[in-house]
């Protein structure tokens, strides 16, 4: 009996020591993961995902897009006003703002941040976002006006991303957001602590954030992330594979969340570029809209969604995912699987089915390679499905998995490829992917060497993109981009296949989350998150 009591007492002592808190006390640290060490803690240098995640959690911005409602809300700016032509925006800041190191934050900090972002020496990704040589005028410590001479579509929404940085940039810089950097162990974690000077309060007057800290573990393996979540060592998994989703749902019912179609689009396209070693007769196939359309018709998107994604994906209707509610052209529907129609389209171009497979009008057998990145389980499974579907038409598809760098090198440098399977996303505003759709764009995927429109439909897209990029009216831009989407679906330079569902896992005792498909999906309102 005595022995049992001693063991119980030791166990209780160990439990108390292990958890580091008293019985009944709620842990107030959020634990999440990023895939690698942030390349920079300078908020203006957040280029890759890891830096961008910690940038989001620490940065104070003037305005924020509410990911749940898509409405623009005031943050460091108490109010703002846009001119009718959409070229000028004026902000009035909240009084008494401070960075986490107690230094004051005023309009001069905003002006300095913007000027530094625009300085080519900084090489900041925000430099491109705010490009256009704006005039920045600070009229009082609380008032600032930014004016562009030319059109700047969606100007107000751009300020959702611009982190206002302090004058002195330490290794771990101070912040005006809900958290500041308090510790960093390379390869282990980034520790973020509650900013005591954060301006936001809840309706009862309690200062936000509710959480004391966020421990951002550096963890490159998604499977390990899932294991940690199941063991209760991590509170959020922001992106889940379908298999992990089912497992979490089984082990911790109510923890796995499906947010519907994500912004991602799995897609394939053919190399239409005159560079590289592609023979002219093969390029002719790829430049034929009927050939591309036949390939598109012959791929069973429903099967891909059901077999590869376990039903947690939806056939794509076009370049924009339905998750992007404002920009999605709702009149577009996914192309149904139709082998007969595919064959008819090929016949109209002179292709014939002969013994040994499909041949073009000149007698060349239809054979091409489909490259994708090795190690990506989803694409490694999609490729054989596409291969089998196209084999029914008599096409021979050679699936080749390459390491990612070799793949990119072939697409953007050597142009030595025939077809590629990758994802192509439009996350928020189509202005971000203008360089894909403009014929002279440097990411004009199917023909990177194009300088002027090679086809009438590309010329029309160029016209529409110019309207889209210059109009101050969101509705005019939407109308123009709707037509771009329609042309993209009719001509299919990129064959959109499926939109995988956005899947995430959230610990049941974490409250206040409003998961959204727009990044950062789960912790976009981190200041309101709390444990119960």
């Amino acid at each position, binding site marked *: 009996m005595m022995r049992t009591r001693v063991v119980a007492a030791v166990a209780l002592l160990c439990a108390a020591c292990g958890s580091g808190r008293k019985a009944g006390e709620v842990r107030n640290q959020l634990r999440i993961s990023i895939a690698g060490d942030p390349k920079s803690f300078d908020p203006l240098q957040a280029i890759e995902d890891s830096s961008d995640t910690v940038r989001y959690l620490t940065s104070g911005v003037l305005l924020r897009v509410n990911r749940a409602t898509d409405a623009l809300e005031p943050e460091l700016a108490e109010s703002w006003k846009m001119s009718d032509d959409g070229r000028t925006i004026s902000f009035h800041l909240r009084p008494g703002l401070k960075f986490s190191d107690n230094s004051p934050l005023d309009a001069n900090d905003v002006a300095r941040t913007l000027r530094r972002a625009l300085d080519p020496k900084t090489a900041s990704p925000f430099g491109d976002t705010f490009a256009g040589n704006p005039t920045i005028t600070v009229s009082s410590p609380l008032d600032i006006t930014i004016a562009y001479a030319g059109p700047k579509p969606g100007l107000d929404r751009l300020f959702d991303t611009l982190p206002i940085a302090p004058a002195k940039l330490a290794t771990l810089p101070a912040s005006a957001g809900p958290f500041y950097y308090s510790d960093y162990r390379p390869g282990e974690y980034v520790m973020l602590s509650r900013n005591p000077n954060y301006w936001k309060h809840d309706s009862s007057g309690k200062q936000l954030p509710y959480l004391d800290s966020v421990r951002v573990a550096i963890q490159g393996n998604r*499977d390990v992330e*899932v294991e940690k979540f199941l063991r209760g060592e991590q509170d959020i998994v922001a992106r889940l594979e379908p298999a992990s989703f089912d*497992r979490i749902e089984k082990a911790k019912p109510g923890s796995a969340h499906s947010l519907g179609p994500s912004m991602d689009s799995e897609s394939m396209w053919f190399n239409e570029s005159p560079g590289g070693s592609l023979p002219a007769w093969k390029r002719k196939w790829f430049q034929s809209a009927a050939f591309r359309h036949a390939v598109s018709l012959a791929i069973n998107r429903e099967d891909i969604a059901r*077999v590869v994604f376990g039903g947690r994906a939806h056939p794509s209707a076009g370049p924009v995912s339905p998750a992007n509610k404002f920009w999605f052209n709702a009149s577009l529907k996914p192309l149904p699987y139709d082998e007969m129609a595919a064959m008819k389209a090929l016949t109209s171009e002179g292709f014939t089915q002969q013994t040994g497979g499909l041949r073009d009008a000149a007698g060349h057998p239809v054979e091409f390679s489909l490259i994708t990145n090795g190690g990506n389980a989803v694409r490694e499974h999609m490729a054989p*499905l596409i291969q089998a579907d196209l084999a029914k038409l008599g096409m021979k598809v050679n699936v*080749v998995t390459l390491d990612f760098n070799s793949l990119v090198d072939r697409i953007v440098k050597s142009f030595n490829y025939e077809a590629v399977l990758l994802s192509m996303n439009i996350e928020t505003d189509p202005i971000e992917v203008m360089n894909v759709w403009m014929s002279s764009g440097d990411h004009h995927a199917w023909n990177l060497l194009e300088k002027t429109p090679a086809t009438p439909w590309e010329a029309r897209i160029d016209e529409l993109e110019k309207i889209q990029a210059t109009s101050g009216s969101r509705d005019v831009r939407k109308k123009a981009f709707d037509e771009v989407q329609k042309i993209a679906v009719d001509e299919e330079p990129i064959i959109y296949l499926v939109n995988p569902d956005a899947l995430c896992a959230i610990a049941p005792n974490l409250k206040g989350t409003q998961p959204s498909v727009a990044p950062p999906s789960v912790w976009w309102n981190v200041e309101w998150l709390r444990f119960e």
Partner: protein
Amino acid sequence: MIWVRRAAIVILILVALGALFGPAFAPYSYGEQFRDAPSALPGGRFLLGTDQIGRDYFSRLLYATRISIVLAPAAAAVSIVLALLIAPLGAGRGLLRPAVSVFTTICLALPWIFLFIILRAELPLNTSPVLSVLATFALMGVAGWAWPARVFAAEIGRMENSGWLLHARACGIPAKRIAIVHAWQHLRSVALAQFRVLVPAYILAEASLGLLGLGVPEPLPSWGNLLGDLRHPDLVRANPWIMAPLVLLILVMICLETLGSAPMGEIE
């Protein structure tokens, strides 16, 4: 432990027979997709279940075993032949001896896995899956000569001062005949031992390349690309039978290692 070795030989013969003739009895083609039954459980329709895109796992395993079991020994044979051609040059006189030694050392020091990745990336994209497999194993065979060559060079070095060689030379036997008839008798057992070491090494090398997604291309199966699914613990947990190629690989490796460690006379 002669019975252990006999058991190893029996198992290897059974696996080899299964690899050679099994595909003829495979219930389905290795590439046939049953899209109504992805990740199906083992049962009457599919003996070992199906993979994620509904391909019969048992049929794929039979074909994969053929590829790994037939091509790994072929690649090992290429390495041994190359080593047997190069090693005697290192036993020569003058500059050739250090030159061959340095060249062998350089080849041993090269990070072959990265070279394979680069090479795979540079192969023509429309190489057929079968040709791609042959190229992969051929490259392994060509790349792997340096290890046995080093052993053969040492063995040839020992022979140079042996009594039988001096006696043969004194009797006026031509060098060509000494090499083919007498020296080969001494090298043969070393060559066979090296062959037994290289076969499992190449099976594992293909498996490693397959794990990186750079080995045998779709839809052709190999132990390597079947083992690729083991990268995802969720899949393994849901479909534990996908470990079947791993079990087979371990069994074959144990048998080969058992034979590899046996004195030559016992096996012969």
